[in-house]
Every structure is written in C-alpha cells, then in structure tokens.
C-alpha cells in the first residue's frame, strides 16, 4: 500500500517537473520572440528614413 502510494507520488512529481519545465521554456521563448519582434518593428519605423538615406549615399558613392 505504502509502496503504491510512493510510486504514485514519484510519477506525479516526474510529470509535474517535466510539464512545468516545458511550459516554462515555451513561455520564455514566446515572450522573448514577441518582445524582440516589437523592438525590431519600433526600431525599423524609427530609423527607416535614416537607413534609406544611408543606403542611397552608399550607392551614390
């Protein structure tokens, strides 16, 4: 009886560790991707004109 209970506890512990680790990884990558995408969009909008001028100048030269 006790052995069966400890087996069940071990199984639950194992599944909890794995599912929380994988969920954590998914959340981490998801949030990081969203943050980077947002930063890049803002950055592109802000410096779009400057990049265009820079590229144009390089082509002219």
């Amino acid at each position, binding site marked *: 009886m006790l052995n069966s209970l400890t087996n069940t506890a071990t*199984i639950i512990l194992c599944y909890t560790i794995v599912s929380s680790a994988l969920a954590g990884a998914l959340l981490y*990558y998801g949030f990081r991707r969203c943050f980077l995408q947002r930063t890049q969009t803002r950055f592109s909008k802000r410096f779009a004109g400057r990049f265009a001028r820079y590229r144009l100048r390089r082509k002219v030269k």
Partner: protein
Amino acid sequence: MTKLPRYFRQAVLPVQLVSLWLFGLSLPVSIFFIIKAVPDYQQHDLVKILYLHVPCAWLSLQCYVVMCAAALLFLFYNHSFYGAALKAMPAIGALFTMLTLICGSLWGAKSWGSWWEWDARLVSELILFFIYCAIIILSNSFKETEKSDYACAILTLVGGVNLPVIKFSTQWWHSLHQGSTIHLVGPSSLAPSMMHALLSMLVSLSCLAALLYSLSLQIELLTRANRQRIYIRLRLNYKKAQER
C-alpha cells in the same frame, strides 16, 4: 544578414501554428493512452515514468543530429542562417537531456534503489548534457558572430562522436540500463497499449520541440538582425560626426 530569409519568414508562422495545433491535439490523446496503458508486471505503475523518459531521451539525440546537420551545412556554405540554425538548438537539447536525466533518476530511485549509477548509458547521456552546456557557453563567449558560429560548428561535430556511444553503450559495455525494446526493423518486444502510449507521447513532445525550435530560431535571427542594425546605426553616427 540584415533581414530574415524570405522563405523562412513565409514558412515560420505556418510551422508554428501547425506544430502548436498538433501538440494540442496529440497531448490529450497521449494522456489518454498513458492512463489506459497496462501496468508492467514487475514495475507496476512506475512504468508510466518511462513514457516521458524515453521520448525525452530520443529527442535529446534528435536535437543533436539536427545540430550536426546545421554545423555541416554552415561549414560547407558558410551562411549565417545555418549558424543561427545551429545556435538555436543547444538550449532545447540541453532541456530535453536534463529532463531525461531527472526522469531516469526518479525512476531509478524506485526501481534500482539508486538515484545514480556510473553506468555507460547514464554517463554518456550526462556527457551529452555537458556538451550542450559547452556549446551554449561557447556561443556566448565571442563578440563576432561568424567566429562564434565557426567554433560552435567545430565543437558540435567533435561532440557528435558521443552519439553512437550513447546508442550502442548497452551493447558495447555490460550495462544496468536495459537495451532497446523498439526496433525499426523487426518485431518490438513491447505490449501494444504501451507502444501506443510511448509513440503518442513521442509525437506530442516532437511537436513541442519543433515549436520551441522555430521560436528559438526566430529569436536568434531577430537578435542578429537587430545587432546588425545597431552596428549600421553606429557607423552612420560615426560618419556624421566625421562630416561635421
């Protein structure tokens, strides 16, 4: 590489959505199969840990195979995309290897009566985890991306020697770890209900790994693009200062 490659940008969202959809679909199925699977005659319900341990172990090796392919492609074509494909994987591989070791340890504590044994299979899997960690450390220790990619590609290919050692460790050495029960060719010595649980869990974890990899690759490419944009901006400011 100032932008993400066009084919990748077009493919990334469908890949992420399909893998998320398949993962959401296969997870309840695999949970159902695991609950319905017959208990082992010796281990009883403790065998349910192996439905996580075995797919995690397979995926830890699969991740390394993908890394080896990316490293070879990078060394042949010297394209930054393959470098990013290589660097996006080690963290995911390390995660699966760590989960394999934790699950195995929990199972071993109850089944073998020991948390850890200096067994060939266990030690080679631990070495794989250290190799993943070494690649992560190496990828963050260079300022220049190209040098870092090159170093990671070399280390990945050198570490690839460990893969056949893990696979054949139970045959080459006298091992406490059991040998393979599922064979690609020939009959497998596993009950059908156990096989269904194992394969469905493998499918759902593979979908999750594909989703994590596509996100990680996108992050790596976006980071590189941002770094290059910052570099261009700094050059632009420097030129402006010179003109003044």
